């Protein structure tokens, strides 16, 4: 598994070293002034801010439960995940170096991901149909990560509207996590059909999640030049490559394991939508604007 980490590491290395390569002087320009101007226009630094929403999907690696059934199949109580159904949010600072249509972008940011799952349990009595209890556990997780994505972009066409494609890697650090458990059910054994819903229990769950994780990302986006400012719409799919849960602290919360709850080994994928604006960092002269306005 560790070997798999080498790929993004190398990509990260290559990105950083190429992005910081020393300037090369032009060799064959006939007009030195024009050549200097063209050379300047080949590069640009962009600084900006993006924010938006994200939707999460859980990829289960191995299932776990604190409940170990003796007379029924454990799969009957497997967690049912609700993919891409809970909104999270993110805010990102973007620093991008542009060079001849290619961009290398560092986008440190904060991301809150949310995902839910449910478990259903039922206890019955073959000798007495009234002896029956159905329970449903709704679990919602909200995880806050600080993330450092390193992204390689390519501008498909260079115009006022500049669509691009992108690939990259990201590394995330856990900041906080909370878990909300809501129990509802139907009790047929108390003399009638008693449907109930308990107040949700909110539990700090930072120990249940991995301190760090990483993943790959790919996506599309577009920049729109508005004066000197560049508006940006960005869509990314982030594929988690390492577990987001803590394997060592799976049963670390007595509150959760006491009700039979234990986190699966899981990776987290995200669909991320962001909107923001970028500002150029290099100007040739007061009358000269950014390279996009050539």
């Amino acid at each position, binding site marked *: 598994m560790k070997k798999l980490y080498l790929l993004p590491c190398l990509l990260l290395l290559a990105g950083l070293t190429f992005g910081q390569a020393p300037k090369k002087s032009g060799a064959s320009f006939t007009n030195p002034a024009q050549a200097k101007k063209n050379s300047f226009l080949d590069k640009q630094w962009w600084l900006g801010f993006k924010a938006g929403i994200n939707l999460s999907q859980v990829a289960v690696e191995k299932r776990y439960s604190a409940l170990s059934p003796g007379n029924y199949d454990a799969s009957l109580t497997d967690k049912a995940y609700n993919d891409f159904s809970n909104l999270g949010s993110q805010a990102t600072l973007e620093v991008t170096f542009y060079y001849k249509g290619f961009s290398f972008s560092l986008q440190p940011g904060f991301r809150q991901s949310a995902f839910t799952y449910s478990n259903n349990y*039922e206890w019955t009595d073959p000798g007495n149909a009234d002896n029956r209890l159905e329970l449903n556990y709704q679990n919602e997780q909200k995880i806050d990560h600080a993330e450092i994505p390193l992204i390689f972009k390519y501008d498909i066409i260079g115009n006022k509207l500049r669509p691009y494609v992108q690939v990259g890697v990201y590394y995330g650090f856990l900041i906080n996590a909370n878990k909300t458990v809501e129990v509802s059910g139907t009790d047929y054994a108390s003399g009638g059909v008693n449907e109930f819903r308990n107040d949700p229990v909110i539990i700090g769950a930072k120990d249940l999640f991995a301190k760090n994780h990483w993943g790959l990302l790919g996506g599309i986006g577009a920049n729109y030049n508005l004066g000197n400012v560049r508006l940006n719409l960005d869509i990314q799919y982030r594929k988690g490559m390492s577990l987001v849960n803590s394997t060592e602290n799976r049963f670390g919360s007595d509150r959760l394991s006491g009700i039979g709850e234990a986190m699966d080994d899981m990776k987290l994928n995200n669909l991320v939508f962001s909107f923001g604006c970028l500002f150029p960092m290099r100007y040739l002269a007061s009358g000269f604007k950014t390279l996009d306005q050539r």
Partner: protein
Amino acid sequence: MKRLFILCISVMLMASCLEETNPEFDQKSFTKIYDNNLFSINYFPIDMVQTADGGYLILGGRRLENSNFTGIYLMKADKDGNFVSDVEVEEGFVNPIAQLAFINNTYQFFCMDPLTLQVHLAQTDANLEAVNIAPVNGELFYPCAAQVDGNSFVLLSYNHVDKRSVLAVLNANGTVSQSQAFSIGAGEQVEEPLINHFIRTGRQYPFEAGRIPGGLYYFNGFYNYTFSLVFTNFNQDDPSGVVQGIQDDGGLSAVRPLSATKFAAARFNFGDNYLLPNVTLNPNGISSSVDLAGNTLPELEPDAHVKILRTTINNKNVLVYGSNTRSKQIGLYFYDEATGIFITSKYLGFSNPFEIAQVISTDDGGLAVCGTTYVAGRFPRICLIKLHPDDLEKVK
């Protein structure tokens, strides 16, 4: 180049901090609740051992439809705590008692015939492939408590004919080599709480039997109208020594000999509980448990069930007291074995009630706690909580 090197090191450090599925963690620490989707099923644990494969064998009881006594239930869990198999022993044998002992390469425990009340010795293997039960070779009835002493058992039983507590030593085949009987007192009322204990309609008394290493044998049970700790050498009709209780309102709730006169014990007194991790008892004289000082723990439920484990955790010899709290958690209290000084405590279970049945040390130097939890607040189910020494880092 230097920058590249630093970057490489940083990336490697970041990669080393990532989580991976690790089967070792699965067996280090876990909480498992053994559920059954039958509404009225009722299994409860009595004792537990760790098997050679790292799994766990649990001896339990079960409610019977056609008998007032407790049926026998055996369950095997793997090293990760997952349910493997179980056995409901036929209703012809009832009233299983601790200790579930590994002796002569089999797992053995005592139970009884519900009709003749004769004590039987049951044997099984680590995978519960077969359970063989045979009567012991001697007139012993109503098994109360047992403990292994080398290759022998020390068994406390109750003779309902003579109204006597009977302490006996049996070999691994169930043959009695020594025994001595002690009167519980005359009258029907004396016997009533005992019978209620066996049919589980009354209080569950903390019966115990054992031996001071290389010395006297003892039992914690009824003697002369009182729940007492009784010492005997089997040669005299009268006890060598007695630590008297107050009828069944006071006495010892657990006892573990540490040396000839030094004990780890717990006592109850009209509902109050006292833990005595370093107490001197006189096995050759008469004393009263009421006179013994101890650590009062108001958080424990009245006349709490107490288990004492003598073990080594993080290279420290400790006494682990396990008991039930009023908040329906399992409380573990750690004391320095040499001094009796309190080290730390740990509470297990939340959300639903938890009750302790047994605490044992595990191969990795941790603890395993077996008990009962009430799933959805109502269904009694066996639970197993495994703690790694890392979880007990305060025990130093």
